[in-house]
């Protein structure tokens, strides 16, 4: 195995290009209030260089990069400018505020629940409550159609992203063992110790002779600026009150503010404004405190994630683009993907207490690539997950238990270990976002998301479930149970070589409208079996090198 050389993490170098971690306070509080108070403010009438819609994985990285290059930027987010001390709680139910809970309706033959399952709101975006796994895609992910005659090819290659993967891995930073899969690589920080849940995974893998590795998690393992060390409390999906787990709120926004970007929170963008004569964007309109405002801009980047990005562009149609911006070929909102994410739990005589330690611990990508001997294409990865009580009740109830049986099973919680698979579901045109009849609090039609699985998808879930059951049995499980779930949204505004095939070009420009871009998970043509956040950030860091060229 050839492992890409990686020089040891040079903190001076990281700090010189992104000072965020050093801009956080070191006195036990989590927010640099001074930085927010002194933030630059633009007037609505000012024509800024760029408006970014959404301060999540995609939007925040771009804002930080371009602010550093002197761009005048306003980044609008529909949700709050979080203060982890005040706004977040170490409690599963209380974390409800972190999710996008504006109404949305779901359908299709396999409806995909949204909200806590996959979408966040507020500065930091969904990474505020993401689990923290930060794997790369494999090189093969970029040529799925050529290699396997399914899905689609990316119009860019793995090599186009590699330097940006490396840069972002240093900025989060990512901790893990030497990574033997895909393009083999090392991580800037060494792996974290594992809890009972991870121990079980490693035990089973050893028994089966299956390669497994600790990581990769976006949680520093060692000093990194003023970020505090993880305290192994297991609430990563509820927002990290410690500032240990990475999210743009602490990894990119502080540096963006220090370089003059304005982050305008609680501002829901309702429309991208386009001058019909020149077919160029002129800014956006947005609601703040019930009042509609406008912000003028030379260019607009939409980073609202896979549901809200297509919705916003559908809502922004005009007489030249009656079906929405970027939708002249009926591709907007389509090819939206979720990963099949069955979770299999095993019961052990010992106490596992999986609620301790961060839920992301151990992974294997042994099943990631197409196996020609199998009746399906592409594959899955397996990772630890560790449901807290409410989510665990969902597991138990899904087995059909209710009443006393539910309670008795729930009392057995400390004995269970859980694995989750991420199956590469293929893109399908009919899996799409459209506008529903229902409206939100601003009177804007909400998104309807239709989802149906294909045959290959179902086969993958079955095979993945079997592989997890084998692993848990090998580790000594007395009993196993599986719940079928979905994870991660990507696609809906896919990148393509030609307008007839997608919504944005290889440089994120929306086909058919000038100076309009999309920079978030919705541009993925396929998804691999990796969690998407690192790739979204890497794409964004790449875009930050292209925009200045376009602006010339």
């Amino acid at each position: 195995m050839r492992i890409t050389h990686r020089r040891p993490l040079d903190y001076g170098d990281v700090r010189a290009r992104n000072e965020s971690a050093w801009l956080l306070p070191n006195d036990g509080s989590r927010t640099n209030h001074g930085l927010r108070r002194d933030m630059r403010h633009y007037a609505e009438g000012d024509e800024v260089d760029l408006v970014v819609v959404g301060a999540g994985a995609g939007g925040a990285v771009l804002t930080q990069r371009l602010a550093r290059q002197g761009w005048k930027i306003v980044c609008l987010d529909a949700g709050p400018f979080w203060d982890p001390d005040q706004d977040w709680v170490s409690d599963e139910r209380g974390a409800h505020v972190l999710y996008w809970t504006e109404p949305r309706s779901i359908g299709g033959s396999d409806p995909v629940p949204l909200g806590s399952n996959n979408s966040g709101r507020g500065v930091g975006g969904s990474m505020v409550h993401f689990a923290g796994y930060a794997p790369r895609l494999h090189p093969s992910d970029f040529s799925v159609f050529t290699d396997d005659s399914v899905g689609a090819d990316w119009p860019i290659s793995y090599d186009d992203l590699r330097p940006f993967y490396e840069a972002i891995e240093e900025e989060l930073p990512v901790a893990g063992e030497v990574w033997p899969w895909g393009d083999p690589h090392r991580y800037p920080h060494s792996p974290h110790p594992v809890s009972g849940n991870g121990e079980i995974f490693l035990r089973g893998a050893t028994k089966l002779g299956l390669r497994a590795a600790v990581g990769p998690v976006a949680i520093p393992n060692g000093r990194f600026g003023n970020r505090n060390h993880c305290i192994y409390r297991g609430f990563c999906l509820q927002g990290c009150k410690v500032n240990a787990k990475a999210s743009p709120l602490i990894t990119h926004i502080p540096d963006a503010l220090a370089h003059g970007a304005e982050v305008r929170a609680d501002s829901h963008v309702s429309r991208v404004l386009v001058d019909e004569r020149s077919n160029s964007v002129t800014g956006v309109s947005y609601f703040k405190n019930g009042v509609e405002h406008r912000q003028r801009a030379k260019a607009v980047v939409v980073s609202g994630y896979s549901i809200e990005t297509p919705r916003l562009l559908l809502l922004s149609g005009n007489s030249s683009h009656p079906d929405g911006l970027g939708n002249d070929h009926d591709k907007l909102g389509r090819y939206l993907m979720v990963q099949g994410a069955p979770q299999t739990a095993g019961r052990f005589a010992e106490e596992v207490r999986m609620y301790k330690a961060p839920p992301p611990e151990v992974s294997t990508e042994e099943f990631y690539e197409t196996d020609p001997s199998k009746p399906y294409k592409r594959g899955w990865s397996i990772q630890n997950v560790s449901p807290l009580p409410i989510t665990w009740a969902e597991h138990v109830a899904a087995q059909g238990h209710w009443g006393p049986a539910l309670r008795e099973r729930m009392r057995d919680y400390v004995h269970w270990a859980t694995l989750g698979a991420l199956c590469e579901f293929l893109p399908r045109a009919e899996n799409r976002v459209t506008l529903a009849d229902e409206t939100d609090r601003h009177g804007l039609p909400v998104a309807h998301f239709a989802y149906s699985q294909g045959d290959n998808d179902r086969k993958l879930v079955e095979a993945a479930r079997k592989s997890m059951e084998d692993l848990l049995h090998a580790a000594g499980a007395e009993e196993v149970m599986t719940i079928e779930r979905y994870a991660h949204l990507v696609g809906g505004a896919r990148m393509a070589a030609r307008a007839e095939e997608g919504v944005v070009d290889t440089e994120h420009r929306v086909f058919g409208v000038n100076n309009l871009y999309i920079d978030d998970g919705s541009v993925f043509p396929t998804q691999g079996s990796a969690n998407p956040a690192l790739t979204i950030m890497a794409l964004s860091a790449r875009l930050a090198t292209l925009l200045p060229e376009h602006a010339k």
Partner: protein
Amino acid sequence: MTYIPPSQRGLTPQHAGRFPGFDTLEQVKYWDHATAGVVLERLAVATQLAFFTAAEVAVARPLLDLLLGQDGEPRVPVLELIDTRLARGETDGWHYDDLPEDGDAWRQTLAWLEEDAQTRHFRGFSHLVAAEQAELVQQVQDLSKSGDKWHGWNATHVWSLWTRYACTAFYSHPWAWNEMGFGGPAYPRGYLNIGVNAREKWEVPDHGEGAAR
């Protein structure tokens, strides 16, 4: 240290549990205020209902008791927790396109459960004995398993609505955590002992079914 009345120490719903003496609430002194606030609020829920009508309560209370096996005191105030949530319109951020939004879906399904009781037993749901009530509830789950409709609605989606709200309320309550040995909030203290069979000094090992008081 906040005061816990002796009768409430190590409390579990219906005194069920396997971790005798374990009390998450004894850890409150180690939690941050924001977290303690949201958790303790669940111990003092509003008893004045804001969402459900009296007629709906007559059906919802026994339904929720059944779904969660709460057949005696002390009870986690599940109905009150759900009422607060529905009154605030705090949904999960999605609903099935063949069901209305959650509040309306609750009202309608409670009305149908009442209708089922009248049709089958010529009495209101609240006047049935628990076994009769359970049978009507079981019927909805059976329809959901066979992929059928209940009063024209997808039974799977109805079952999902009921169990999601019920479980979210019940397992957000510290008494339920005591019952299952879950440590609860862990900020800023965190966990020191991780690994198979590792416990914090304040955690209690599993003593098996029937071990609580």
